């Protein structure tokens, strides 16, 4: 069987799977996150077969890891996940723990970890993995302001993702956003666990500890940006509004800045 036909079949298979999994999604190429406000801004959810970037400060690395693991779990709950990481990031912020993944409701059996010695090898491996249509998602975890992850590299990843239908998730820790071709860009921080209230009379020791993220969408190619508090529901495997959270930390801007201004800023930055 020719490879073109194989990939067509794989694409169709992937589509059917997505329809079956998320029957309520607006678009076949979108996966709903579960957080209503964020899904509305994203026009139905996170785009598959695209590149998404998640930035975090160095000490927030575990939070960002949890957020990106959640995104990967939403994008492909049943297909293999390749996680490419640099050696340095494991020293700096610890290895991905399988029991931790289980606790988040994700399946460690689907995970293949690549321990790349440096950024170049990590980037190349990720590009290679993105070309393989048997995968659901590829996570590329890079520590620091990597010179190699420029506009060209980002474009390559975007093209590879679009061709194979695999979603690329970039986890950038201790790095400043640079111009890229990513579909969305997030900055993630840890948020406080919701305070226990009389309306939620759970046992005090179990009332907190669920992963809560302060997720700021700072770039969205096809819509406005925003900032939300999201909680990852480990049992249902989706994001949601935290039940007992007082108020959003920041008001959502009505529209994102004008396109031309944004691009002008980016050119100066790059």
């Amino acid at each position, binding site marked *: 069987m020719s490879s073109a036909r194989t990939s067509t079949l*794989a694409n169709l298979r992937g589509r059917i799977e997505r329809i079956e999994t998320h029957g309520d999604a607006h678009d076949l190429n979108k996966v709903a996150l579960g957080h209503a406000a964020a899904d509305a801004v994203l026009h139905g959810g996170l785009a598959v077969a695209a590149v998404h970037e998640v930035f975090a400060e160095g000490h927030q690395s575990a939070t960002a*890891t949890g957020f990106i*693991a959640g995104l990967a779990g939403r994008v492909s709950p049943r297909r*293999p996940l390749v996680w490419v990481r640099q050696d340095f990031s494991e020293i700096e912020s610890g290895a991905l*723990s399988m*029991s*931790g993944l289980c606790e988040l409701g994700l399946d460690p059996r689907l995970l293949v970890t690549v321990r790349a010695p440096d950024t170049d090898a990590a980037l190349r491996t990720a590009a290679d993995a993105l070309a393989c249509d*048997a*995968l659901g998602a590829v996570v590329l975890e890079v520590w620091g302001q990597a010179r190699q992850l420029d506009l060209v590299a980002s474009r390559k990843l975007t093209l590879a993702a679009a061709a194979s239908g695999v979603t690329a998730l970039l986890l950038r820790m201790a790095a400043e956003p640079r111009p890229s071709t990513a579909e969305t860009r997030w900055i993630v921080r840890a948020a406080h666990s919701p305070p226990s209230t009389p309306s939620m009379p759970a046992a005090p020791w179990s009332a907190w500890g669920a992963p809560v993220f302060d997720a700021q969408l700072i770039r969205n190619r096809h819509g406005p940006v925003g900032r939300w508090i999201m909680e990852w529901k480990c049992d249902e495997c989706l994001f949601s509004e935290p039940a007992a959270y007082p108020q959003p930390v920041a008001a959502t801007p009505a529209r994102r800045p004008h396109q031309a201004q944004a691009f002008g800023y980016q050119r100066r930055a790059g």
Partner: protein
Amino acid sequence: MPPPLSLTLPRKGGGNDIAFDAPSVVVAKQHNAILIYALDDLAVRAGLSIGLPLANARAICPELTVFDADEVADRKTLEDIADWCDRFTPLVALDPPHGLYLDITGCAHLFGGERALLQIVSGALSRRGFAVSAAIASTAICARTLTRHGSGKIIADGEEAAAVAPLPVSALGADDAITAGLRRAGLKTIGDVASRGRHEISARFGAGFTTLLEQALGQGDAPISPRKPLPDYIVEKRFPDPVTTDTVIAMNLSALAGMLVTAMDKQGKGARRLEASFFRTDGAVRTIPVDTGRPVTRADMIDRLFRERLDALNDPLDPGFGFDLIRLSASRTEIVVQQQRDLDANVHDNDELAALIDRIAARIGGKRIVVHLPEDTHIPESAVLAVPAQHHLAAAAQAAWPERIESEPPLRPLRLFDKPEPIKVPFATVPDGPPHQFTWRRVTHAVVRVEGPERIAMEWWKQNGDGPTRDYFRIEDEAGLRFWIFRDGLYESEPADEEGEPASVRWFVHGLFA
């Protein structure tokens, strides 16, 4: 009878690149005496011989140039020559310190017959400055015996006894004691020894020597022990003009991959380990192995694996003046079970994933791409075993992980430090309680929420498994960061210092929650 070729390189050559006016020798210390280990033609003419003490040699020939023997380098040189000899036959055996056996059964005709092969081998080696002595005979020992006196002999079947009979007994290469004993008994040539009854020889010199003698006479054979196991499949290509450019090399490699796959396909085999050998014109040989997770049966996959591997080499393939032989061999193969591909989506996906893993492993190494298996232990850092994905993909897909408890927040951190990192805890109000603040990586975190302790004792029933019990706490700080910290050791069981504080209680951060 298979004809082994024996090469012996007994003396330092009158090299092309180094020429000495004075006789020169190499000496080594044996039995507390400095003896001649090797010598050149001029030294032989001056009357020196191997085994002569250096002092005597200097007395005979005062203008002697002396070098120290370097046995490691000698061994390395012999190995390199054996690598080079791989181009003639895959069965090359070492006969230290100076000899090589080549089993040329079925190979000689490729090089124009035995005579031509002998000339090619000894010609090429002499041109590089080695003094070489070669012979072809039906047994390895017979061939070796012949090389000790003169080079270039080819002995037909059944003529071994006649050929070795006039040679002195020392040519057999037996122990010095045996050789001396034979001389003392008046048996000067191998023919003399052979003419005596075997039982006499055995009784006097042992059964081992009789066996050696019979092999030299062509009456019994011992197989040589080749350096490398024989690969299951070999294809190779020779070039009259050496090839140097990457494109040509890659093209030939993919053509060879096609030939290899055709050969394997006939017997339903797929390759698990492949080796590409590049023979340079100057004798250097570079072998590049590639391992695969499942049997490879497609030429384009082999081609791609080698392209990845060659791309990622730390010291790239150096063609020098060109390669004149490229060989591709499958050193480990497996029977391939053909699966129906068109309808079963999982089979297709698994194949694709395995191929991807092989490609990545070829580039960055098999140990760097891993899957995870659960370990039956409650020690957090050893609960997971990371194993190479190439070999354990199927096992990992079947692994049974502990189920999470419904409607509980995560009890285990998402990122775990391989080595727990020490933190500074100023004081704990309750002896067994959690800290109110701690300093980790020079940042002080104030504890807002605490859950714990969860007590994990070390595995005292294992050897070296005995350690302090750990009390784990889940902590949330004022910024919302969630940590997994533990106290190493219990308060009551620890010896206290003069201020009443336990001496060795230390705190660590072990993981970070999402």
